């Protein structure tokens, strides 16, 4: 039985706008416009798409915050909006831009309060608290009120808070927003291990494709409220015509290089940019370059979300 089962899910928002003094117009926004997917227990799924695509709206429906306009929706076999409080025990939610902790309470009191709200048995609570606090390195912060934490510290605290009651599903809406590289890395490792060791189902939205690459095996792309892609990474790169870019500095200026399996997209003095389809190895291309010319410097740029996604969005 799938953990999350969604069929033709829609949510529209009615927007009333003032135009001039008396004129008012009403407009419907199809925030989620008929999406269908299912997630099995233990999967880690990345949910990506441009601003306003409908990611947060989807998560709010999956958690029961928003009632869908139409469509079928089951999470852990429950209808989220009707069985919201029941479902709440089984899920953890982290909204990156906001905190689920109490601004004015010391972190320890926030955790303690969550223990009582979720009725977590004391041994479970203590085991989880010490494990997660250690892994996310927030042990020194427990006495501080949440408002005094930095963004990255607060985000880690929020993730601990969302996990104290052993949720079966963890929803993360932009959990790495505003984090420095080291914190992002630590968080990705943590999530990957959580998924692998505990089998926690993860649904993650982000604008950083590296998050997805490191945490998830499956990606769903949403654009204008519709699913544009659902599959694994190799398929995403193929579908998005992703390319890796080899940037070479030659010793002398040379005409655009012709190496099989690559294409020169830019030349600037001694520097040339060659693209190689993602999924094909760059080794042979580099070997061919080195054997024919003298190379001063070379680097490889991985495809980013910005490179891959426009191709998906452009498709009908």
């Amino acid at each position: 039985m799938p953990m999350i089962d969604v069929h033709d899910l829609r949510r529209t928002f009615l927007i009333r706008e003032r135009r001039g003094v008396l004129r008012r117009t009403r407009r419907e926004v199809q925030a989620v416009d008929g999406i269908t997917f299912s997630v099995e227990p233990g999967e880690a799924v990345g949910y990506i798409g441009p601003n306003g695509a409908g990611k947060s709206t989807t998560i709010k429906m999956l958690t029961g915050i928003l009632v869908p306009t139409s469509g079928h929706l089951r999470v852990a076999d429950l209808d989220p909006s009707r069985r919201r409080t029941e479902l709440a025990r089984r899920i953890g939610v982290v909204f990156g831009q906001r905190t689920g902790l109490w601004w004015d309470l010391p972190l320890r009191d926030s955790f303690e309060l969550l223990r009582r709200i979720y009725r977590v048995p004391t041994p479970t609570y203590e085991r989880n608290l010490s494990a997660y606090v250690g892994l996310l390195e927030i042990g020194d912060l427990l006495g501080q009120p949440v408002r005094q934490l930095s963004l990255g510290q607060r985000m880690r605290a929020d993730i601990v808070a969302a996990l104290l009651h052993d949720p079966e599903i963890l929803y993360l809406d932009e959990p790495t927003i505003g984090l420095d590289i080291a914190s992002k890395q630590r968080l990705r490792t943590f999530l990957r291990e959580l998924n692998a060791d505990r089998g926690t189902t993860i649904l993650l939205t982000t604008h950083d494709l590296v998050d997805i690459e490191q945490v998830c095996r499956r990606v769903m792309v949403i654009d204008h409220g519709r699913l544009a892609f659902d599959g694994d990474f190799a398929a995403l790169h193929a579908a998005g015509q992703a390319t890796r870019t080899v940037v070479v500095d030659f010793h002398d200026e040379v005409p655009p290089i012709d190496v099989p399996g690559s294409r020169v997209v830019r030349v600037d003095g001694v520097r040339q940019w060659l693209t190689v389809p993602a999924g094909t190895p760059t080794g042979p291309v580099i070997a061919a370059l080195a054997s024919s010319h003298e190379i001063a410097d070379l680097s490889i740029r991985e495809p980013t979300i910005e490179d891959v996604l426009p191709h998906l969005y452009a498709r009908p």
Partner: protein
Amino acid sequence: MSEALRMFGAIAGAWVRAGFTYRTSFVVLTSTGMILTFLDFAIILIMFSHLDALGGFTLTQIAVLYGLSGFAIGVADLLLGNAEMLGQRVRDGTLDQMLVRPVPALVQVAADRFALRRVGRVLQSGAVLGWGLSAAPIDWTPLRVLVLASALVCGSLIFASLFVLGGAFQVFAGDASEVANAFTYGGNTLTQYPLAIYPVEVVRAVTFIVPLAFVNWYPALYVLGVDDPFDLPAAFQVASPVVAALFVAVAALTWRTALRHYRSTGS
């Protein structure tokens, strides 16, 4: 229900403990609150240095009206006054957080940032009520005691329902706490005085539309043994429990509907 109360206790308790860490500020806030609410009654005292009766009511009888209304809104405000902040909660996303926790949202709204200092109003109104009841000429019967006791409970429920309705309205509209305040605190000020001083339209409105007259006016008429100056059915004077039950049901239904129409925010 008992589960809801337990959760209310757990959350409110955390806030009370957090509040006590600044003990002096708690004492200062509570006592200034009590002084301010007392000044409120002082206005009535000053008025009575120039008159013997207002709308046919003596000072001690007005103390009963004042005390019942103040006690009711005091209890409601202590327990559910935070519903007033719902517009803010919608905007800053804390309502979203409450909706993903395994406790009814209303319990969390009520208990979150629970402020024990609000008990000041209950104590002050209780004192005024006690004085009024002991000083006014009342022919005590078991039924009068019962009507008085039920007025305390039902009045609190009616004001609490008003807070919930105000909160539900903010969930629909995103904001407009001023509108909600007009009904709760405005209603409290209105019912501090005998309804006899108001035009009959006001009396009809607080009887049939927003049933504030059942908080203190009708029960007080019964307890004090005063004839209804507007000649409305005598049954109204003992009807507070029925009215409160209906109003609670309306508020509960409206709250659920509001949550089902909640749109959250776009960010």
